[in-house]
């Protein structure tokens, strides 16, 4: 059930798991939108597995800011009125395109005076390995 106010939230509760779209097509489209693909469409680490491998990478990346966008989307699915104050991420390993990933979130702090909730966020690949972790601080109506 979507969270509408701070009193709906409990310490330790898990947000519904979220499966981000990590297809190469979506990652490449996003990279193009933010200007990371040249106008001539040259292949690079965001739109081509082959180009990424030539750079010594395991495959094309999903842009980090797209992954952050997925984190925000997940939080808003859980609590639509949440005002996101901060998303603080540590990128441990790349999110490789065309590999299934999932995002988990859990509530790890509730500041009732400030109306703030802290959420641990973890992006894992299909082997359960952490690629990105971080925390979000969100404000919910009292």
């Amino acid at each position: 059930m979507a969270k509408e106010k701070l009193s709906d939230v409990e310490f330790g509760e898990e947000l519904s798991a979220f499966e981000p779209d990590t297809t190469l097509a979506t990652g490449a489209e996003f990279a193009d939108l933010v200007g990371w693909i040249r106008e001539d469409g040259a292949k690079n680490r965001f739109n081509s597995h082959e180009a990424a491998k030539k750079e010594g990478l395991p495959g094309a990346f999903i842009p980090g800011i797209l992954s952050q966008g997925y984190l925000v989307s997940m939080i808003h699915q859980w609590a639509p009125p949440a005002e996101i104050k901060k998303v603080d991420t540590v990128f441990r390993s790349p999110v490789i395109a065309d590999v299934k990933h999932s995002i988990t979130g859990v509530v790890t702090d509730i500041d009732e005076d400030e109306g703030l909730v802290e959420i641990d966020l973890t992006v894992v690949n299909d082997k359960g390995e952490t690629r990105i972790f971080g925390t979000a601080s969100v404000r919910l109506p009292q």
Partner: protein
Amino acid sequence: MLLDLHTHSIKSDDGRAKVENYCQWIKSKNLPIDGFVLTEHRQFDFESDYSPLAEKFGLVILKGAEVETEYGHVLVFGVTEGLYKEFDFADIKNPLEMVLEMSNKHGAQAVPCHPGRPKVGMFAHTENLGVPKGVEIVEIYNGGSRDNEDQIAIDNAEKLGYKGTGGSDSHIVSHIGRCATRFPHDIATIDDLVAALKAGDFEAVNFKHAD
């Protein structure tokens, strides 16, 4: 007694967990660990006193450090002011053998961590640099390991006769307790912990797939 020997709080540059939230998490999720050691990156936290939290939550909270060497990262348990003066904890290229020697000199125990990891793990460097002298213990279970990093650590530790510890390497609250180290006797202080490590009286435990 089970202790998570490798955790980071907001005192580390990439740590996002408050110590009190670790305690709340352990208790609210009924994690099987009895406490943890804060091993902040490239520093030792002489100031913080976690004894009120330890008492409030009935947990053991100890402090260590994670320093960096040419062989990768190394946990140090039993840091004293004397040891802290022997080398620069903030330096990322401390010689491992010096860290081991100085730790022993000051009654501390150094433990190379995530040794199976590329770049920052000891076994990634032994082919080029040789097997360092003085290593007795390595971390064989690390909560942040990817691919076969733990297996590389286990296989090499067995080959070289090292004992193995476990720690979550948690940087956020919900990752604590993924790996730990079991001791047959109670550990209440850092001196107890160092003594148990030096006695080889422990075993690494992996809870990563118990979520």
